[in-house]
């Protein structure tokens, strides 16, 4: 019986005097979406960097896919993919070239076919030949996530995947993340948006002052508060509802049709 996809125990890390992580513990079950929620500077990125072998912890242990991030760093790197806080894409290359590059570095067979398939899946086929410098923020983020999927790593880290995106692009990214999870990939996602965690995550952990202060499903977290009172409130559409209704969810709809016709 395989253990959890991610196992973190007693993780500490300081930057000089500043203690960013003060004993972080959590487990992420295989195939689940786990959201690490916290304000800016809470240490979310530090945790992701430790788990993706970019940074060493001062203390504690971390295992990803059953491998220790320090002693078996190479095995960890084979098991993961990191989508950082800023879309780490190559502006000079085209979208397709970015994907082919990743496929070659991951020693995947038929890099070009893999690239084309991912372009299709992330509704980037038309833009595939263009320089990434001309892409919108949402397109860059989608390409970024597509690049992370090459080689089918069992664990994916998404560090604030929707920061700076417009509402439609956020919804597209969310759909992509759900698809990943349905395919059996474990997703660790950091976010500062509460609704994002609410929408996506199977389990949510709240990181505050260097510790996980609470972990649970959305329902478990809700139960921490006093029981809900029934009140009658006039249902006002949120500005997001209005915005989406007015501009329409064109991009998402287009992608769906395209996916449907080609299938």
């Amino acid at each position: 019986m395989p253990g959890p996809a991610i196992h973190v125990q007693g993780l500490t890390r300081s930057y000089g005097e500043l203690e960013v992580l003060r004993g972080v513990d959590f487990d992420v079950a295989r195939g689940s979406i786990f959201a690490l929620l916290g304000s800016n500077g809470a240490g979310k990125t530090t945790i992701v960097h430790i788990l993706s072998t970019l940074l060493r912890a001062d203390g504690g242990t971390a295992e990803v896919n059953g491998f220790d991030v320090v002693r078996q760093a190479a095995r960890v790197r084979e098991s993961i993919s990191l989508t950082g806080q800023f879309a780490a894409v190559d502006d000079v290359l085209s979208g397709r070239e970015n994907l082919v590059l990743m496929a070659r570095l991951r020693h995947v067979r038929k890099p070009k076919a893999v690239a084309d398939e991912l372009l299709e899946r992330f509704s980037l086929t038309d833009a595939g030949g263009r320089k990434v410098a001309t892409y919108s923020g949402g397109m860059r983020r989608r390409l970024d996530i597509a690049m992370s999927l090459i080689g089918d790593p069992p664990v994916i880290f998404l560090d604030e995947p929707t920061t700076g995106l417009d509402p439609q692009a956020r919804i597209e990214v969310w759909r992509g993340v759900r698809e990943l999870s349905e395919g059996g990939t474990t997703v660790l996602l950091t976010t500062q948006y509460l609704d994002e965690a609410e929408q996506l995550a199977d389990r949510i952990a709240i990181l505050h002052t260097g510790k996980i202060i609470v972990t649970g499903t959305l329902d478990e977290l809700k139960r921490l508060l006093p029981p809900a009172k029934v009140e009658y409130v006039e249902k006002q559409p949120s500005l997001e509802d209005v915005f989406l209704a007015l501009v329409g969810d064109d991009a998402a709809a287009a992608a769906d049709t395209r996916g449907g016709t080609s299938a």
Partner: protein
Amino acid sequence: MSVIGDTAVLTGRSLKHVTRSMDTIITTAVVPIAMMLLFVYVFGGAISHGAGSGTYVTYLLPGILLMTIASGISYTAFRIFTDMTTGIFGRFQSMPIARSGVLWSHVLTSLAANVISLVVVFGVALLMGFRTGAGVGAWFAVAGILILFTLALTWVAVIPGLTAKSISGASAFSYPLIFLPFISSAFVPTQTMPGPVRWFAEHQPVTPIVNTIRDIFAERPVSTDIWVALAWMVGILAVSFAFAMVVYRRKIS
């Protein structure tokens, strides 16, 4: 994991940055070419050089070539800096690829970009009347010296590329290197310089390298300068490589 395969893929990527912005090649070559034009056609008449026979452009070219390399490597620092700040670097580091390949790809790209710039500068020099009777062996010797010099300065450039806080910081380090040939035997013989300046000119790396290349082009036997030149280049290469690797390890741990 194959170091060579990964490095080749990464170098291919990095080379696209060069071939898709040929303006970086032009910018690299334009200052040395401007200097060459200025010194040959404006100051050249007034400079009585001790080069004996041959034109002033023939005398000047070795120093101009070194200036081209010094100018070219600032783009190497720039490309490394960009990879660091855009997160591409982090992405590569979190992947199962040979970590040294990321740096080597930039070093090989630097070599390729500088070779292109050098060919452009050579072309202009030929148009301006540069001539040499040097044979194939001599050309290989010059190419070897220029490649060694590029490698040494490229590893110097890796350091600000990895550590700089801003784009201008990443490329500003090359300015003193570009102007180093002025206080050397590149433009005028060092014998014409006053005491302290002459001492500096005769004890800095550009002078022995320039003298060696000049001797090879003029089909004269090279002096002991070649050993001084090689010692400088290998020394700079070894120190900057070691220092760059320390910085790199600190960055990726």
